[in-house]
């Protein structure tokens, strides 16, 4: 798998979430995603960026344009140095929330992506990668 282009953005404020959404929209359009696919991926990005901010205490996202053989896609890697997640399968359950949200962030972002990877442990922060192929 080849990374054709990579860009890193901060996720430290509510305004940053908007900037992340705009960057993901721009790359999705650049790759020729249809409107529904763009919307799904931008929404997934928004959910994960908010998680990074609210639960991770802020962090960053790396936006990568991928090529895998004839397939192209976008990978988003969210990273924070927050408290981490002790029980990942519980955190992935629809409706489970540790804050005052609706508990759809992780499970929803997974449904809106083609690939989803989460790596987290208490005290170690959280790293979440999603890919949507064209």
């Amino acid at each position, binding site marked *: 798998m080849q990374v054709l282009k990579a860009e890193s953005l901060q996720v430290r404020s*509510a*305004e940053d*979430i*908007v900037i992340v*959404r*705009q960057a993901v*929209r721009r790359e999705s359009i650049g790759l020729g995603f249809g*409107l*529904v696919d*763009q*919307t*799904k991926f*931008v*929404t997934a990005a*928004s*959910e994960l960026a*908010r998680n990074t901010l609210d639960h991770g205490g802020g962090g960053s996202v790396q936006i990568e344009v991928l090529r895998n053989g004839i397939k192209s896609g976008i990978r988003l890697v969210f990273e924070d140095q927050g408290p981490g997640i002790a029980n990942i399968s519980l955190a992935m359950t*629809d409706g489970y929330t540790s804050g005052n*949200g*609706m508990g*759809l*962030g992780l*499970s*929803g972002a997974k*449904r*809106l992506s083609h690939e989803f990877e989460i790596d987290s442990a208490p005290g170690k922060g959280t790293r979440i990668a999603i890919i949507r192929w064209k």
Partner: protein
Amino acid sequence: MDRIPILKMGDFLLVSIQVDMHDRLALTLQDDLTSQIVRHRARGVLIDISALEMVDSFIGRMLGTIASMALLLDAETVVVGMQPSVAITLVELGLSLRGIRTALDVEKGMATLQAALLKREDAIDAAS
């Protein structure tokens, strides 16, 4: 600071969200709307989201909260103009927006609010 304008039209308040909503803007809108409902004694709120290219769980929750708060202040809420791609995404995200009334466009939304208002007035008449 940015604000989303709220227009008064008869018994109703109209809000058209034209910008990419950041979180603070959403919270300001909640505060502004509730105070305007009381100030104008509004009976309904119409929120046009046709310019929104994305609704995530935060914005969805905000719309639900506005509808609940408005109802406590005796005003109905209708959300109009959702883009089809947004509706598709919301379902996959798992957000059903239960308790939020929707209509396809502003005209149909106004009709929905009028009908809801008449129905409530009839109910009040019947009770007295």
